[in-house]
């Protein structure tokens, strides 16, 4: 593991075609560059094998879920492994297919595709409890030690966002689709801003939405020009086999970062930057494919490289 070579990977290609769009939307044209500041895991070491979820805390520690060795790992700000926990199984603190990770002031919250509920760890990776939740989760957002939100995968019912307390009791719920578009078609990545507004990126539909905390849709945008994704019949269900938008996050200027999926021009590499009003500001293309993007409290962006063996941390540079 080593600190990245500070190689300025300025691939912020503000596409000429996109300028007119942003100007029409009344947005100030913006360029966003990325500069590598840290790299964890490499092809010649066994630090990471297939990382899935990432979170960082205010002290600069980086927490990573690794799907191939069923673990939760803690790294310091320089990328040195501090501690590792987990192991294969369904017992307390164990994983079968770890996926999403969130961080509050004192706790870490991890989901697992093979285990229902949300596992809670302290910052020293000691297992605390499992918050009961009976539905599969497509995204996770942590407000505080006492409150988290999850996006529920819509398989037979329309997808929804559920806010839970620390004990797993439902506090509120937002159903963002009145009618189900099909199994999994309502799956979203979700993020909330400081005002409580909700931003959704649909995984299998070309749609980004902003909702206010009262449950009113403020705007809805398409980014790729995709009408419908390919589907396949599996075990009696018609399931999507292409992705439109894979992840969504916010920086501290209120910009919305949306990762394009398999239907993007550069699959799993294009990141669309939107203004709070939904105007497309710019697009940047990552050097390697990633399954997620994560922006921390200091506006550093974390993405995947080498098929999950490497985590890259980039500084976002605005011009």
């Amino acid at each position: 593991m080593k600190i990245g070579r500070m190689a300025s990977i300025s691939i912020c290609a503000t596409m000429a075609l996109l300028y007119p769009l942003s100007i029409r939307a009344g947005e100030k044209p913006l360029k966003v560059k990325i500069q590598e500041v840290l790299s964890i895991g490499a092809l010649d070491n066994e630090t990471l094998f297939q990382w899935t979820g990432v979170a960082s805390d205010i002290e600069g520690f980086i927490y990573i879920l690794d799907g191939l060795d069923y673990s939760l790992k803690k790294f310091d700000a320089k990328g040195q492994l501090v501690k590792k926990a987990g192991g294969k199984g369904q017992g307390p603190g164990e994983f079968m297919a770890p996926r999403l990770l969130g961080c509050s002031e004192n706790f870490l919250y991890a989901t697992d595709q093979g285990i229902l509920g949300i596992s809670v760890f302290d910052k020293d990776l000691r297992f605390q409890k499992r918050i009961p939740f009976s539905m599969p989760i497509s995204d996770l957002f942590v407000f505080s030690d006492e409150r988290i939100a999850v996006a529920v995968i819509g398989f037979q019912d329309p997808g929804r966002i559920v806010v839970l307390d620390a004990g797993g009791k439902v506090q509120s719920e937002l159903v963002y689709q009145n009618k189900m578009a099909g199994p999994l078609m309502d799956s979203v990545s979700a993020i909330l801003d400081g005002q409580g507004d909700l931003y959704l990126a649909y995984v299998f539909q070309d749609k980004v939405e902003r909702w206010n905390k009262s449950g009113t849709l403020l705007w809805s945008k398409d980014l790729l020009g995709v009408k419908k994704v390919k589907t396949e019949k599996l075990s009696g269900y018609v399931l999507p086999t292409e992705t439109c938008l894979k992840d969504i996050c916010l920086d501290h200027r209120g910009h919305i970062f949306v990762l394009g999926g398999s239907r993007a021009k550069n699959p799993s590499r294009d990141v669309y930057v939107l203004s709070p009003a939904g105007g497309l500001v710019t697009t940047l293309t990552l050097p390697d494919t990633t399954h997620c993007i994560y922006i921390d409290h200091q506006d550093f962006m974390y993405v995947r490289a080498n098929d999950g063996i490497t985590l890259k941390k980039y500084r976002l540079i605005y011009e």
Partner: protein
Amino acid sequence: MSISRAQERNSKRNMNPRRWFFPLFCLLGLWPVRAALFICCSSTAGDGAARPSAISGRKTLCLILIDFDTFFCSPCLAPLLEFCQALPGPIQEERLRGILVYSRRSDESEDSRYARIVQTKMQGFIKANDIRFPIVLDEHHLFNGLLKSNTQALLFDDRRQVVRKFSFPFQPGEKSDILKLLLSNDGG
């Protein structure tokens, strides 16, 4: 082909993989089955009939062609792991070998880089799942054509002197039959 750490560990225990793979390749069609079994089991056909087989005698062996894509799908990987866990470590070391098969990348340099990615992931897989048998990488894509879909087990059934192919997940009854043969010491 690259040799995994598990393989190196086993080599130290006088489990040279060449002893395994040469006869196994023979069984895949290069040599007659009987000749391959002769080499593999270090005993003659006549010996097998004349005296009871000991642990060092003729044994059923299993070559597992592991589809790398299953690494990304835990339900797909589960049947293979359940099968491995049903076999004690020494039996895994003695009777199982694995080949990790992955799809070829379009250009050579990308394929070479991807081989390193696959190899690193393989190390994680071996460690995390306590895999005790050696697994090697199909770096030259020799087995891509053979592995049409899903992970497969090629069972070198010494009792019947045939090679049998099974796909994961096994059909009802197949797993117990295979385990019975692999756990048996009497030439099965």
